[in-house]
C-alpha cells in the first residue's frame, strides 16, 4: 500500500483530530515502517485489489452528483418537479416532506423540517433554487452540532477506540480507513481482531493491518473476544501505541446474549484502563432505514456508544435517518464512509449532507 500515490485532500486534514500536525507531511513522504513486534503475516491475496482507485479522488458530494447523473434512479428529480409553482403552499410542502421521507428521514423528522420551512416562507414566493437552499440549511442546522471530528488524544497511550455495530455495516473497513488516516499522521496504531466469530474476519483485519502498516493482535477463531481485548490493551500499552482500534463481531441489537458479550468487552477494557474505551464508535449503514434509530438506542445503552460513522454513502442511499438520530440522541458523527478503499473516509460535513438530501 505504501508505494501507491495518493492525491492529498487537504481540506480533510483539520477535520480529523491531528495530535501532531507538523509531523504528518514528513511522515507521509516515506512509507510507514511496519512494527517489529508483530509483523503482519503474509497473506495470499492481492491486498491492493479493490483499492485500485486510479480515478482522481472526488469529494463525496462531487461523487454523489456524478453518480446520480449516471443512474436511472430519479432522486434529484424531486424538487424541480415539485416546484413548477412559485409559491410555497400546503401541497408543495407536503411534496417536500415526501422528498425527505424518501431520503429516510422518517415521518416525524420530515414533518418537523417541513414545518420549519413553512414557518419561514409559507405562502411566500420562492424559487426552486431557494427552496433547495433553505431546505438544505434547515437540515444542516440539525446536523451541525453533531459534526465533530474524532479526537485522538496523544496523552492517552493508547487512545482506545472500540468499533461496534450490526453485521456488515462496515466496522472492519472503517477500522482499516482510520488506521490509514492515523498512520499517515505518524501515529503508532494497533488493530485488535476482536471479531473472533465470523469466518475470515481476522484475516480481513490482518490485510488491513498490512495495507496500513498498523500492528495487529489476533487470536484464533472462536477465542473469547473479551480476553483478546484485554490482551490488546496490555500489549498496546506495553508497546507504547498511540491508538488502539478494537474490532468486534457484528451483532443485531435485539440479540441479548450478543449485547451482553459486548458489555463484557467494555468491562474488560476498563480493567486495564478505567478511562477506556475513549471512543465507542457505532457504524451505521446509510442504506438502513428506520431501524438505525433502534440500533443507536440499544448500542448506546449497552455499549456506551460515543460517536457514529455512517458508511456506504457512495450508493444512492441518502442516510437521512442521521437527521432523526442527531435530533434525538445528539451523538457526534465523526466521519462518513464513501467507498471500500483505505482513503474512502471523509469528515462529516453538515452543510454538504444537507445539500445532498435536499438534492441541491
Amino acid at each position, binding site marked *: 500500500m505504501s508505494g501507491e500515490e495518493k492525491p492529498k485532500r487537504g481540506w480533510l486534514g483539520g477535520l480529523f483530530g491531528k495530535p501532531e500536525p507538523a509531523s504528518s507531511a514528513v511522515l507521509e513522504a516515506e512509507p510507514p515502517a511496519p512494527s517489529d513486534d508483530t509483523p503482519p503475516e503474509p497473506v495470499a491475496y492481492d491486498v491492493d485489489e479493490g483499492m485500485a482507485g486510479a480515478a482522481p479522488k472526488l469529494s463525496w458530494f462531487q461523487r454523489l452528483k456524478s453518480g446520480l447523473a449516471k443512474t436511472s434512479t430519479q432522486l434529484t428529480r424531486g424538487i424541480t418537479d415539485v416546484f413548477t409553482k412559485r409559491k410555497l403552499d400546503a401541497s408543495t410542502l407536503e411534496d417536500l416532506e415526501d422528498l425527505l421521507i424518501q431520503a429516510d428521514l422518517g415521518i416525524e423528522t420530515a414533518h418537523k423540517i417541513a414545518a420549519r420551512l413553512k414557518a419561514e416562507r409559507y405562502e411566500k414566493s420562492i424559487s426552486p433554487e431557494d427552496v433547495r437552499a433553505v431546505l438544505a440549511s434547515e437540515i444542516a442546522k440539525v446536523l451541525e452540532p453533531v459534526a465533530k471530528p474524532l479526537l485522538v488524544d496523544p496523552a492517552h497511550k493508547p487512545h482506545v477506540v472500540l468499533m461496534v455495530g450490526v453485521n456488515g455495516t462496515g466496522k472492519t473497513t472503517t477500522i482499516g480507513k482510520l488506521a490509514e488516516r492515523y498512520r499517515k499522521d505518524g501515529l503508532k496504531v494497533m488493530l485488535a481482531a476482536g471479531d473472533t466469530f465470523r469466518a475470515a474476519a481476522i484475516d480481513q483485519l490482518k490485510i488491513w493491518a498490512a495495507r496500513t502498516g498498523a500492528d495487529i493482535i489476533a487470536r484464533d477463531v472462536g477465542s473469547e473476544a473479551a480476553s483478546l481485548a484485554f490482551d490488546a490493551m496490555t500489549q498496546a500499552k506495553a508497546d507504547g501505541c498511540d491508538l488502539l482500534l478494537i474490532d468486534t463481531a457484528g451483532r443485531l*441489537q435485539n440479540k441479548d446474549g450478543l449485547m451482553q458479550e459486548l458489555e463484557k468487552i467494555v468491562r474488560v477494557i476498563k480493567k486495564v484502563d478505567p478511562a477506556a474505551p475513549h471512543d465507542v464508535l457505532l457504524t451505521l*449503514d446509510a442504506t438502513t432505514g*428506520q431501524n438505525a434509530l433502534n440500533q443507536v438506542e440499544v448500542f448506546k445503552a449497552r455499549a456506551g456508544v460515543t460517536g457514529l460513522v455512517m458508511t456506504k454513502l457512495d450508493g444512492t442511499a441518502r442516510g437521512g435517518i442521521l437527521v432523526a438520530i442527531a435530533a434525538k440522541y445528539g451523538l457526534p458523527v465523526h466521519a462518513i464512509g464513501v467507498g471500500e478503499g483505505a482513503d474512502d473516509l471523509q469528515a462529516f460535513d453538515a452543510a454538504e449532507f444537507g445539500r445532498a438530501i435536499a438534492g441541491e
Partner: protein
Amino acid sequence: MFESLSDRLSSVFTRLTGRGALSEADVNDAMREVRRALLEADVALDVVRSFTDKVRAKAVGQAVLKSVTPGQLVVKIVHDELVTMLGSDAQPIDLNAAAPVAILMVGLQGSGKTTTSAKIGKRLTDRDRKKVLLASLDTRRPAAQEQLRVLGEQTGVATLPIVPGEGPTQIASRAMMAARLGGYDVVILDTAGRTHIDEELMAETATIRDLTNPHETLLVADALTGQDAVNLAKSFNEKVGITGIVLTRVDGDGRGGAALSMRAVTGKPIKLIGTGEKWDALEDFYPDRIAGRILGMGDVVSLVDKAMQTIDATKATAIAEKMRKGVFDLEDMAEQLAQMERMGGMGAVMGMMPGMGKAKDQMAAAGFSEKSLKRQKAIIQSMTPQERRNPKVLDGKRKRRIAAGSGTDAAEINKLLKMHRQMADMMKMMSQKKGMFGKMMGGMMGAPGGAGGMPGEAEMARMQSELAQLDPKALEQLSPELRDLVASATPTPGKGAQAQLQLPKGLPGLGGGGRLPGLPGLGGMKLPGLPGLPGFGGKKK
C-alpha cells in the same frame, strides 16, 4: 416503539359509532394511518402510494358487519392486499435446468451474500441431496474468498480452490468448468458486493451472468433497508436481471418494509429469508408473516411454528395433563421458563407476538427481563423436588437457603412464588372452562388428538363456537389486541363469511382451516406476565 396498525385504526374509528358501509371519508382517514404505518416500516413512498390507492378502492363501500369493528375490517383488507402484493405462495429455488445449475448471488456490500450462499449450499445439499459447489468471485473485499472457503468447510459443502490473482470472470469460468468436470448439480457463485450505480462493477456482473448463464440470479438484500430498497432492486433487476430476492437479517427487529418495496418494483418473488447466524437459519418466505410484521401485528404464525418445533412433546403432554386437572407446580413452571428460553428468550417471543411491543417495555420497566428469567430458573433449581411440588412448605429458613443457592434474595423468591400462584389460578380457571382453552393448550402442548399436536379442522370449529360462549370476564383479562383477535376469530352469524377475518394459511396441522391469531401462542406458551395473564402484565401504569 411502534404502534400497531390495528391500535391506530381503532383510534381512527372510535368516532365511528354507527354501522353500515365504510364511507370515503372514513377510509381516507384510515389510509393516512396505513400510510404512516407503512412508511414507519420502511416501505418506499411510491409503493406506499400505489398500495393505499388500491386499498382505498377496495375499502370504500365495504359493509361493516356486527362481528368486526371497522378497524378490523380495514386491517383485513390491508393485510390481504399486502399478502397479495408480496406474492401468495412460497417460491422455492428453481433447479429445473441442465446440470450444473448456476445460482448467481448479487447485492450491495454487507448485505449477507456470502453467508446466504453457504446457507443455500447447505440446504440444497442436506434437503435436496444435491452436489453443490460454492465459488467466491469476491476479489475485492479482503479475505472474502477465504471466508467462503471456511464456511464451506463448516457446512460440508465443496468450495472452488482459491487461485490468487484471478479476476472475477476468470473464477466464474473456472467454477463452471470445475462443476462440469466434477459432476456437480449446482454451482453457487458468490460475487463481491457492489453499489448499484457503479457502472463498471454492474457491467462486470452482467459479464459474469453471460458467462455462466445462471438459472437463478438472487438479489440478497438486508431486511433493514430503508427507502433505497426500490432504487437498488430496480437497478439490479434492470442491469443484471434477477429471478428472486433473498431477504436477510429478518431476525432483527426491523419491520421489513423493504420486502414490499423490492417485490413491487421488480415483480420478482422473495424466495428465502435469513433469520440468524446459524446454518439452518434460512427459511421459506411466507408473505403473511412479513405482512403482519409490516403492520406491526406480530408474527403469530412464526411464533406458533417455533413453539411447535421447540416444545418437548412428552413433557408438554404431561404438563397439559396436569393442567387439565388444575395442577400446576413449580416443576411445571420451570419447564415453561426453559421452553421459553429454547424459543430464543423473552425478547424473541415477545417480538413475535402482536401488540407486544408495549408489553415488552412494560415488562422491562417491571424488571422482567432475560436476566430475571435466568434468576427465576436458578431459584427453582435450588429447590428440593418436594419444595417444587409443594411450594407451601417454603418457610423463612428454606427461602434463605434457596436465596443463597441461587444468588438471589427472599424478595425475589416471593415474587416468583406470587407469580406461580397467579399462574396456577389462571390455569385452574381455564381448566374449569374445559373445552376450548384446555384443548388449545392440549393441542399446543402436544397432547394426543389433533394432527401433529394441533387441533384438527372439526375440533377447530368446535373451539370457535366455544370461544363464542366464553365467559366475558375471562376475555376482559386479555389485552385489547388479543381481545380483538378473539373477537375476530369468533364465527359470525348469518352471512358473516365475507366480513370474517380470513385467517392466513401456513399453519401446519390446521389444514385448510385457519388460525386463531394470538390465542394458540397464548395458550400454548402461557407466558408468565403476558398482559391479561396475572402477573407482571397486569401491573399497567
